[in-house]
């Protein structure tokens, strides 16, 4: 049976950054990824990465902005750690080769981003994630890290003592199913944006790591907090970077009014994302939108600035929306974008499930609280990729491989055989995905109403029943994407249950979770993390709560959040 000291699942920024720590520590580390590392969705992050690298800025200010941005539910020790490590982590990427944009004199250029009190977002034009991803991949090649490319994880395996023993891998290229033993598993599988039908995410962002961790007994935290990005393109949901507003872009309604002055008189378009998304949705609901969208207006920036600073998004809008930002405002709307929730970990990325670690969007450390600030997600990946990787290597010392029961592989194999054998009962995977994810948009969107949420939750049993009837056309072994998607859909259904139950239970509005019946934040009763766990007896997700970790600083005390 193949084995490694550390198995990292996912080859985006967090996974690759963690792997480099494994190399440095001299342990046997391997990455398992269902797509080639360069295809990972980190590449789609456009705007930049936050860090107080300017002497006039401070790490304290960055921490304060992040605590406030997260609506006082982020864990303060982890936030301070992230903001403290930010400058060094960014400079490290620079040394590895990331070509960050520069100012005269050669220092790294920084731009304004939402919810930040200083222009602290380092960027490389509007493709920061892409160049960072390519840089870490280069380092991975240099270090000759073993990568199981186009291999999907279908199960997280624990032993009788509930200690992680490894994973069951499905090689997409050949259809082979094999066990991979590891002393520890680090989930860096990204977010669950695909739970929503309208989203900015890659189709591969199906939260596999979270869902399999949930089924293996690990708690997920704060799943109801899903960030709706204020500027998803109307027809495809594809992201237009917050950098576009950072460079001075306006949000206007159908009458051409800059409506943000009503909602965030000081920060206007650069208020926190949850605030801007709710403002847009309100404009749309009150009839001041067009075809369910409002507009991002860049025209006044001028052709030159658009071409220099935002070339990629200009081209994207031409390709996907047929609109040239130089001449016309872009139709945009709030679109599911980022998962604040994830595998619950401590500030070093360790989950309560022994041997399980997590970093990046897959994890809930929690540094983003109820709402992530733009530019903090890339930061999260490189800081906690590094910290978790390092912590994991320390933890591994003296640990041994756990018992990996052969039955685990057999069960996955028989599940595959069952899926392929199923007769056609009229349930196609795409239709079921559209029902599940479409429902999440309909019942658990920007604003959440109790009756509507209940209606959504009531549909879950039928979705689960139909999932068991779903029929696949493709019966082959090689490159069976039909089969892969069937497993991914199962993961999405589990994660949507976490979101639904968490949202129904949380009787307040905080960050990205906006209840129409409880419009205010309730710190007395709800300043706490929601934990979701799979109850194998009940066969459903059950909730519990955990206190926010605070550090006792007066400036972090919850206040009314205005921008």
């Amino acid at each position, binding site marked *: 049976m193949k084995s490694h000291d550390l198995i990292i699942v996912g080859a985006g920024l967090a996974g690759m950054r963690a792997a480099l720590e494994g190399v440095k520590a001299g342990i046997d580390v391997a990455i398992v990824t269902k797509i080639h590392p360069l295809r990972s969705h980190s590449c789609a992050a456009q705007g930049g990465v936050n860090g107080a690298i300017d002497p006039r800025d401070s790490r304290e200010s960055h921490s304060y902005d992040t605590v406030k941005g997260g609506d006082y539910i982020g864990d303060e020790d982890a936030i301070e750690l992230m903001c403290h490590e930010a400058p060094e982590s960014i400079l490290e990427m620079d040394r590895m080769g990331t070509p960050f944009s520069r100012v005269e004199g050669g220092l790294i250029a920084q731009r304004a981003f939402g919810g930040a009190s200083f222009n602290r977002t380092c960027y490389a034009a509007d493709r920061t994630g892409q160049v960072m991803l390519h840089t870490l991949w280069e380092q991975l090649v240099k270090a000759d890290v073993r990568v199981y490319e186009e291999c999907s994880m279908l199960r997280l395996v624990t032993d009788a003592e509930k200690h992680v023993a490894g994973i069951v891998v499905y090689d997409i290229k050949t259809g082979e199913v094999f066990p991979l033993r590891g002393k520890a598993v680090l989930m860096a599988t990204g977010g669950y944006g695909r739970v929503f039908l309208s989203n900015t995410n890659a189709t591969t962002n199906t939260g596999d790591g979270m869902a399999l961790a949930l089924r293996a007994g690990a708690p997920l935290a704060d799943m109801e907090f899903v960030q709706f990005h204020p500027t998803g393109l109307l027809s495809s949901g594809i992201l237009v970077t917050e950098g576009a507003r950072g460079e001075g872009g306006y949000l206007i309604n159908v009458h051409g009014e800059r409506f943000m002055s009503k909602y965030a008189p000081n920060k206007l378009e650069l208020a926190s994302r949850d605030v801007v998304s709710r403002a847009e949705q309100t404009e749309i609901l009150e009839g001041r939108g067009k075809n369910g969208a409002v507009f991002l207006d860049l025209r006044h920036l001028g052709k030159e600035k658009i071409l220099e600073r935002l070339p990629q998004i200009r081209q994207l809008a031409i390709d996907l929306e047929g609109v040239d930002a130089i001449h016309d405002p872009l139709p945009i709307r709030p679109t599911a974008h980022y998962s604040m929730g994830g595998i619950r970990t401590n500030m070093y990325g360790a989950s309560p499930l022994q041997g399980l670690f997590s970093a990046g969007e897959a994890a809930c450390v929690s540094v983003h609280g109820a709402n992530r600030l733009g530019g903090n997600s890339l930061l999260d990946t490189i800081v906690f990729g590094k910290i978790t990787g390092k912590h994991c290597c320390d933890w591994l010392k003296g640990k041994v491989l756990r018992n990996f029961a052969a039955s685990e592989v057999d069960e996955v194999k028989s599940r595959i055989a069952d899926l392929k054998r199923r007769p056609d009962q009229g349930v196609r995977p795409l239709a079921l995905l559209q029902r599940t994810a479409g429902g999440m948009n309909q019942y658990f969107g920007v604003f959440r109403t109790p009756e509507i949420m209940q209606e959504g939750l009531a549909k879950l049993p039928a979705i689960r029943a139909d999932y068991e009837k779903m029929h*696949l056309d493709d019966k082959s072994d090689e490159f069976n994407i039909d089969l892969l998607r069937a497993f991914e859909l199962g993961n999405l259904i589990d994660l949507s249950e976490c979101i639904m139950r968490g949202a129904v239970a949380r009787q307040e509005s905080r960050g990205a979770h906006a209840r129409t019946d409880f419009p205010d934040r309730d710190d007395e009763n709800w300043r706490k993390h929601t934990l979701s766990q799979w109850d194998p007896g009940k066969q459903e997700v059950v909730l519990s709560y955990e206190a926010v970790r605070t550090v006792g600083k007066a400036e972090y005390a919850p206040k009314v959040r205005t921008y």
Partner: protein
Amino acid sequence: MPVNTYTIRIQRKRKTSDGRIDSHWKEYSVKATETTTILSILEEIKGEQDGTLTFRQSCRSAICGSCAMKIGGRTRLACKTHVGVVARDNVVEIASQANQPVLKDMAIDIGPFFERVHKITPYLTEGPETDAVTEKTAYDQVNHVTQCIMCGSCYSDCTMAEVSPEFIGPAALAKAFRFVSDPREGQKTKRLRQLAEPHMMWSCARCAMCVETCPKDVKPMEAIVKLRTRSVAKGFNDGPGPKHALAFHHDIQQSGHLNEFTLMMRTVGIMGTLEELGTAFHLLKKGKVPSLFPHKSAGLAELAKIYEILEQNPLDVETKAKEVVPE
């Protein structure tokens, strides 16, 4: 926008038990508007008509590089290609990328493509030539090529790769230029020396197909030309590639014409020229051998001026007209 009915002809490919690829064309009918992307159409076919249809995709926004495939005879990203642009009489033909082994339908084996990229030492290396970054413009050359998303389109459409599988290909060479042009790179000269070896930068025939086909405007051939310029400047003039380029340069500068006979001599030497005599006779029969004593072109002064401008700024050679942005 009006809805049209498109016929999507897809080359379906399957591996047989003996390892061969069995292929046939299959037609699907889909309703779409002109601006519907090919990826949306493929997803609709897979989701509603035929779940066995296989292709890679992920980001849907032309940044992950998964969905490059032959669409209407040219390699394109399915996610940014509008059906209206590629359809002829409402028919679109789709197949896997060329020049690479196929696994199934449009899913190719990406291994050989990345093996080529691995060959150019694809990471910054330390060494004596490391410079500090002190200018705002430090990465102007780097930026162009770091737009590359490694989708493989250029390799799939590369006319040289088609006849010479040993050729390292445009994407790998563009990546090599990314390091050679980075002030922080410590071993620029060593890289240039390696790139002057057979099947590397001098094997490119400069057909500009990669410039045309690249979905991210990386212009790999321009990077190749820039690599060659830097390599010659370092004095790596051995081998038929640089010799040919220098002889070419000499002839044009002197007379405005190529002297095909001496060009050959200077590129491959006497023995090499003798080997090509058969070809020469063949050309002679067809009346395609120019005079051995070409006259000087009119307008040599103008030519001299072009050279003067190029030599002042050898790194900014544009091989594709700048995109016109409408006012």
